[in-house]
C-alpha cells in the first residue's frame, strides 16, 4: 500500500481504521459463547471508537477538501484496486459512522444480549459488517471491488434484518429483499461492463471525463438508475422496502433507511459525475422520478397504520426529494444556471445527511415504542407521551425535522432545494420554468402531506388516551436508547440553528461532483443567505420562550384546574371514540384513492335488529400487488417448461456445466 501523504494522523488512515474497527466489532462476541452481554459491550466499544475515528477522518477530509488516492496491489485479474477518499465520499461516510455508532449504543437497551444472547451475537456481527461494507463501497474506485462491497452490504443487511427468521412474515420480507437486491445488482453488472468497454479498465474514470453522447452511455445511465434506484427505493422500484424496514429490528431499520438507501443515491451521483456535459433529458428523467417517488411515497405513508411501514414509505418520499435535487442540478448544469446546480446538488446532499439523522432518530424512536407497547400497530398505542417522557420529546424533534419545519435541519435542505428551483422559475426559459414550477409544487405538496402524516403518527402514538391495555402499561426505554436518540436530535437542532456551517460540510462534496463550479467561485452561503435562516430560527426560539414565560406567570397567579376533556355535551366518552390513525387519514386516503387503491370490507346491515357486523379497510402495496406479482405469476406459468431442466439429479447438473463450458470455448474460438 502506498500512501500519498506521510502525515502522522492522515484522514484516510483514520477512516480506514474506523472502518476496520467497526467491521470487526461483532467478531469477538462470536467467540464469547458464555458472556454474550460482555460481547455486546465490547462490540459497542469497538463500534463507538470506530465511529469516532471514522467521523474524525471524514470531517478532516471535508475540511481540507482534498482527495486522497491509494492503490492496493491485489492479485485479482481486475486491475489495481484503487481506493479514493474525496469530500463526496466523506459526506456519505459521516452518516455511515454516525448512525452505526448510535445504533450500537442503542442496541444495548433495545436488544440486550443478556436476554437474547444468540440473536444479539448475530446482530452485532452483521451490523458491523454492514457498516464496514458500506464504508468500503464508498471509498472503492474499482468496479469489481465496489461490487464486492456492494454484495457484502446487501447480504449482511439481509442477515441482520432477518435475524428473527422464525417469523414467516420476516422470511417473506427477506426473500422479497433478496430478489430485488439481486435484480438491482444484475443491472449494476451491465453498467460496469459497459463502463469498462468505454474506459478500457475497471478503474473509475476521473470526474467529468466521459462523453454522455458516446454509444452505450444512455444504457449506462438507465442501468445505473435501475440498479442504484432499486437500492435507494425510487418509486416503482421500492417494492422491497416497506416490508424489509417494517420487519427488522428497529436499529437495523435505522441503518437500512438512514444509511443503506443512501448508497443507491451515492452510486447515482458517482456514476453521473463521471460524465460531462450531461444532456438535459438525464436531469429531466431523474427529476421526474424524484417527483413521482416523493409524492406517491408520502401518500402511501399516510394510508398505513404500522408505524414502521409509515417510516419506510416516508423514506421513499425523502429519497424522492433527494432525487429531485440531483435532477434539478443536472438540468441546471446543462442550461448553465449555477445557482440551480449549486443549490440543487447542495440541497440534495444535505438532505442525504439530514434524512439519515432524522429518519434514524424516528426508527430508533419507533423501536422504543415497540419496546414499550409490543406492537407496531399505531391504533393500539396512544397516551405514550406521559408514559415515555424521555422518548416523546426526542421523537417530536424527529417528526418536526422530517416535515421540514424551522428551526430544524429538514427545513435547511428543503430551503436550499426550493431556492434552487425558484431560481429556475425566476429567470429560466419556458420549459425550465415549467419543470422547476412542477418541482416547487411537488415539494410544497410533499411538505404539507408529510406534516399530515407525522401529526398523525405523533398524535396517535404519543397523545390522547391509551387505546389498549398494552399502551396503558407503557414504560420508558432504558437509558441507552434515549441517549442514542438524543445525540441524533441534537444534530438535527444544530444543523437547523447553524445552517451556514452545515453548508460548509456539503459544499466541497458539490465541488467534487461539479468541478466546474470551483472556477466560478460561487458558494452555497453566498447564494442562499443561510445565516438569516439560523438567525430567524434562534429568534423563533426566543420569542417562544418569552411567550411561554408570560404564560407560566399567568398560570402561577391563577393555578389551573383539572377536568376531563370536553366531550361537547356527551357525558360518557370512551377512549375508543378517539380519532385513530385510520380515521385521521381517511379524507386524504379518499382524495388519493386513485393511487392508493384502498380496499374496504363494508358490513351488510339488514333488518331491524341486525347481527353484529365488522368493518375493515386495507391499503395494499399497489405496485407489488397489482403490477409485479400478477406479472410474475404469468411469467412463471409461461416458462414452467424450464423447470424440467431442474430435476434434482446432480450428475445432470454437471452435464449442464460441461455443455456450457464447451459452448463457451467454441464461441471464444
Amino acid at each position, binding site marked *: 500500500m502506498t500512501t500519498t501523504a506521510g502525515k502522522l494522523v492522515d484522514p484516510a488512515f483514520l477512516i480506514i481504521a474506523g472502518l476496520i474497527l467497526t467491521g470487526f466489532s461483532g467478531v469477538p462476541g462470536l467467540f464469547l459463547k458464555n458472556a454474550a452481554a460482555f460481547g455486546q459491550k465490547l462490540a459497542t466499544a469497538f463500534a463507538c471508537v470506530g465511529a469516532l475515528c471514522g467521523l474524525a477522518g471524514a470531517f478532516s477530509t471535508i475540511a481540507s477538501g482534498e482527495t486522497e488516492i491509494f492503490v492496493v496491489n491485489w492479485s485479482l485479474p481486475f486491475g489495481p484496486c484503487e481506493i479514493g477518499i474525496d469530500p463526496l465520499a466523506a459526506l456519505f461516510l459521516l452518516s455511515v459512522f454516525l448512525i452505526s455508532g448510535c445504533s450500537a449504543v442503542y442496541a444495548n437497551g433495545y436488544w440486550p444480549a443478556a436476554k437474547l444472547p444468540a440473536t444479539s451475537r448475530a446482530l452485532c456481527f452483521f451490523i458491523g459488517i454492514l457498516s464496514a461494507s458500506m464504508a468500503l463501497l464508498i471509498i472503492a474506485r474499482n468496479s469489481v471491488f465496489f461490487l464486492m462491497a456492494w454484495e457484502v452490504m446487501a447480504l449482511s443487511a439481509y442477515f441482520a434484518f432477518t435475524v428473527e427468521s422464525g417469523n414467516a412474515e420476516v422470511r417473506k420480507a427477506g426473500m422479497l429483499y433478496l430478489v430485488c437486491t439481486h435484480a438491482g445488482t444484475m443491472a449494476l453488472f451491465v453498467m460496469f461492463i459497459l463502463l469498462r468497454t468505454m474506459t478500457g479498465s475497471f478503474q473509475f474514470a476521473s470526474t467529468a471525463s466521459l462523453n454522455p453522447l458516446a454509444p452505450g452511455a444512455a444504457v449506462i445511465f438507465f442501468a445505473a438508475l435501475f440498479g442504484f434506484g432499486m437500492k435507494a427505493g425510487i418509486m416503482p422500484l421500492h417494492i422491497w422496502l416497506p416490508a424489509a424496514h417494517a420487519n427488522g429490528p428497529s436499529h437495523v431499520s435505522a441503518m437500512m433507511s438512514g444509511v443503506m438507501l443512501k448508497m443507491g443515491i451515492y452510486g447515482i451521483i458517482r456514476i453521473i459525475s463521471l460524465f460531462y456535459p450531461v444532456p438535459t433529458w438525464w436531469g429531466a428523467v431523474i427529476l421526474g422520478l424524484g417527483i413521482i417517488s416523493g409524492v406517491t411515497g408520502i401518500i402511501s405513508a399516510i394510508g398505513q397504520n404500522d408505524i414502521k411501514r409509515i417510516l419506510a414509505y416516508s423514506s421513499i418520499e425523502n429519497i424522492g426529494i433527494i432525487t429531485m435535487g440531483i435532477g434539478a442540478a443536472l438540468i441546471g448544469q446543462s442550461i448553465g444556471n449555477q445557482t440551480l446546480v449549486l443549490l440543487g446538488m447542495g440541497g440534495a446532499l444535505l438532505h442525504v445527511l439530514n434524512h439519515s439523522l432524522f429518519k434514524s432518530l424516528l426508527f430508533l424512536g419507533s423501536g422504543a415504542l415497540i419496546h414499550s407497547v409490543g406492537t407496531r400497530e399505531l391504533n393500539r398505542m396512544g397516551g405514550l407521551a406521559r408514559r415515555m417522557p424521555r422518548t416523546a420529546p426526542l421523537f417530536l424533534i424527529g417528526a418536526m425535522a422530517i416535515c421540514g419545519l424551522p428551526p430544524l435541519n429538514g427545513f435547511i435542505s428543503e430551503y436550499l432545494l426550493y431556492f434552487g428551483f425558484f431560481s429556475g422559475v425566476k429567470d429560466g426559459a419556458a420549459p425550465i420554468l415549467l419543470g422547476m414550477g412542477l418541482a416547487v409544487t411537488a415539494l410544497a*405538496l410533499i411538505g*404539507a402531506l408529510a406534516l399530515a402524516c407525522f401529526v398523525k403518527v405523533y398524535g*396517535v402514538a404519543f*397523545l390522547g388516551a391509551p387505546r389498549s391495555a398494552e399502551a396503558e402499561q407503557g414504560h420508558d426505554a432504558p437509558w441507552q436508547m434515549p441517549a442514542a436518540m438524543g445525540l441524533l436530535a441534537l444534530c438535527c437542532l444544530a444543523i437547523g440553528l447553524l445552517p451556514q456551517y452545515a453548508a460548509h460540510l456539503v459544499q466541497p462534496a458539490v465541488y467534487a461532483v461539479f468541478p466546474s463550479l470551483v472556477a466560478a467561485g460561487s458558494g452555497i452561503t453566498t447564494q442562499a443567505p443561510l445565516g438569516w435562516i439560523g438567525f430567524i430560527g434562534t429568534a423563533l426560539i426566543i420569542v417562544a420562550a418569552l411567550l411561554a414565560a408570560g404564560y407560566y406567570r399567568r398560570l402561577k397567579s391563577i393555578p389551573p384546574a383539572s377536568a376531563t*376533556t370536553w*366531550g361537547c355535551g356527551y357525558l360518557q366518552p370512551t377512549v375508543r371514540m378517539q380519532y385513530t390513525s385510520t380515521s385521521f387519514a381517511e379524507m*386524504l386516503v379518499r382524495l388519493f384513492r386513485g393511487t392508493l387503491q384502498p380496499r374496504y370490507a363494508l358490513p351488510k346491515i339488514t333488518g331491524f335488529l341486525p347481527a353484529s357486523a365488522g368493518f375493515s379497510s386495507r391499503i395494499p402495496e399497489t405496485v407489488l400487488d397489482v403490477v409485479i406479482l400478477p406479472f410474475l405469476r404469468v411469467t412463471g406459468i409461461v416458462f414452467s417448461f424450464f423447470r424440467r431442466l431442474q430435476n434434482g439429479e446432480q450428475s445432470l447438473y454437471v452435464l449442464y456445466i460441461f455443455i456450457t463450458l464447451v459452448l463457451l470455448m467454441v464461441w471464444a474460438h
Partner: protein
Amino acid sequence: MTDILIHMLLTIFMPPLLLGVIGKTKAAFAGRVGAPFLQPYYDLAKLIRKGSVFSDTTTWIFRAGPIITLAATLVAALLIPLGNHLSPISFAGDMILFAYLFALGRFFTTTAALDTGSSFEGMGAAREVTFACLAEPTLFFALMTLSRLSGSLSLSPMLTTLSLSLWFSAGAALLLLVGGMFIVLLAENCRIPFDDPTTHLELTMIHEVMVLDHSGPAFAYILYGAALKLFVLGAFFIHIALPLKTGNAILDWGVFILSMLGLAVTIGVVESIMARLRLLRIPQLLVAACILSAFSMLLILR
C-alpha cells in the same frame, strides 16, 4: 427606523381590529348594532386575566401548542412588507420560511388538538391538515408567479414592485391570482364558506373545534394568533389586489390601513351573503384555487 417601529406597532395592535370590523359588518348586514369595534381587544384582555382548565389526558404539548403557534406567526409577521414599506427583515428566499412558519404553527395547533384525546378535536385536526395539503401548492404557485413577475426571490421586493401599471400589462394573470389567493385567505383563516367560527355545532367546524379545550391565557394566545394570521395573510393579499402607491411614506401607511379595513369589510360581506359549504365541497374549491393560480403562472410565461 420609524417605518420599522410603525410596522411593529401595527402588527401588534391592529389584528384584533380586523375581527371587530368583520363582526360589525356582519351585524350591519343582519340589521343589528353589533359589538363595538374594539370588542376583540376586550375579549383578549379578559381571557388573559382568566384561570385555565386542563384536561387530564393532556401533556406539555397541549400547553406548548398555542405558544409556538403564536411565536411562529409573530416571526412570520416580521417578513411581510406592509403596504409600500419594506419588511424589517428581508433576505433572499424568505418567502419559503414565511410559508413554513405557518406550517410550524399548523403542526402545533393540530398536535395540541390531538393531545386532548377528543374525537371532535381529532376531526378538526384531520380536516386542517387535509385542507392545508390543497392550499399549500396554491400559495407556492402564487409565490412563483410573483417571483417571475418581479424577478426577485424575497417577499419585500416581490410584493412592493407590484403596481397598478402591472395590472394593465399582466392583468389577467393577476386577476386569477387574486381569485386563488382570496380563496386561500378565507380557507387558511377559517372564514365562511370554509369554516364558521361562530357555529354551535362542533361536527362541522375546523379551526374552532381544535381549540375547544383551551382556556384562559392560552385561548387568548390562540385568538390573537388567529387575528395576526388574518392580518399577515391579508397584507399579502392586499399587495396583489390593491398595489396602490402614493410616494409619500406617511400616506402609504394610511393607504395600507384603509385597504386592510376594506379587506375586513369585504370578508364580512362574503360571510354575510354566503353559507358555509358542505365539507365535501371544500376540497373542490381549494383545487379550483390551485388551478387558478397555476393558470396565472402559465399566463406570465413569456
